[in-house]
């Protein structure tokens, strides 16, 4: 029997209709999955994360001339044996801290992460980062529209080549 003849639209209109409806339902389902995702997360700050130097990171985060502050606690090992997994703990004691960003000075792409906190949420966290070599870890805090900075050198004995 010749399959092509049997499956032509003229001979099997119901089957064509069924396939078309199915396809359209599938497209609609995919679109509805993508939409809430966009609404939930803010746009990823590509200029800041793609910057290859600290100055570029500052520019990407719209932070000009941050002031050095003693009210940012930055805990990181003085010597990190494994550059692929360096723990960094940050807490801001600056009132109305809205945003905290962590960057590693000598990595190809310095910016590691930035966090935006809702009102009243404790501005503190621990993350684990890759470090290519001995470098300063810098923390930038935004509070009431102003920017503050602290940093600490971490010696790396065995660097992560993919940082």
């Amino acid at each position: 029997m010749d399959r092509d003849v049997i499956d032509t639209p003229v001979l099997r209109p119901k089957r064509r209709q069924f396939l078309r409806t199915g396809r359209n339902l599938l497209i609609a389902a995919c679109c509805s999955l993508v939409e809430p995702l966009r609404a939930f997360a803010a746009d990823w700050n590509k200029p800041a994360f793609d910057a290859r130097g600290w100055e570029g990171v500052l520019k990407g985060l719209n932070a000009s001339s941050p002031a050095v502050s003693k009210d940012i606690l930055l805990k990181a090992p003085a010597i990190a044996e494994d550059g692929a997994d360096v723990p960094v703990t940050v807490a801001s004691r600056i009132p109305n801290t809205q945003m905290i960003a962590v960057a590693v000075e000598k990595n190809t792409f310095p910016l590691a992460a930035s966090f935006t906190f809702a009102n009243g949420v404790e501005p503190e966290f621990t993350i684990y980062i890759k470090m290519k070599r001995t470098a300063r870890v810098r923390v930038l805090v935004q509070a009431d529209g102003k920017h503050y900075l602290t940093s600490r050198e971490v010696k790396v004995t065995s660097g992560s080549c993919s940082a």
Partner: protein
Amino acid sequence: MSEPITLSLQPKNELVEIVVQVLHPMEAGEALHPKTGKAVPADFLQTIAIQLNEKTLLEGQTGSVLAKNPVFRFSFKGVKAGDKFYVACTDSKGRKFEQGIVVPVFKNQ
């Protein structure tokens, strides 16, 4: 595939600490594959958001500098037993991962 996010909670003084671990390669797109010599394409987490009872507590953006299989620790106050945490991540390939956990009754509290 099961969700690659694991969540755990523990009391920390008057706060509750949430530990988020995401199984993810965190490839920067700079490394070469040791066998083929070809560039390994970029594949890393870009956003993380944490909600408590459907209210957003924090939103983060991340780069490939985060360690492979990254771990995040955050502490929140005013968290009660029965509250619901919800964590969602997206990566540079447009995938979305999510996980939820209900706050248990902690002992010695």
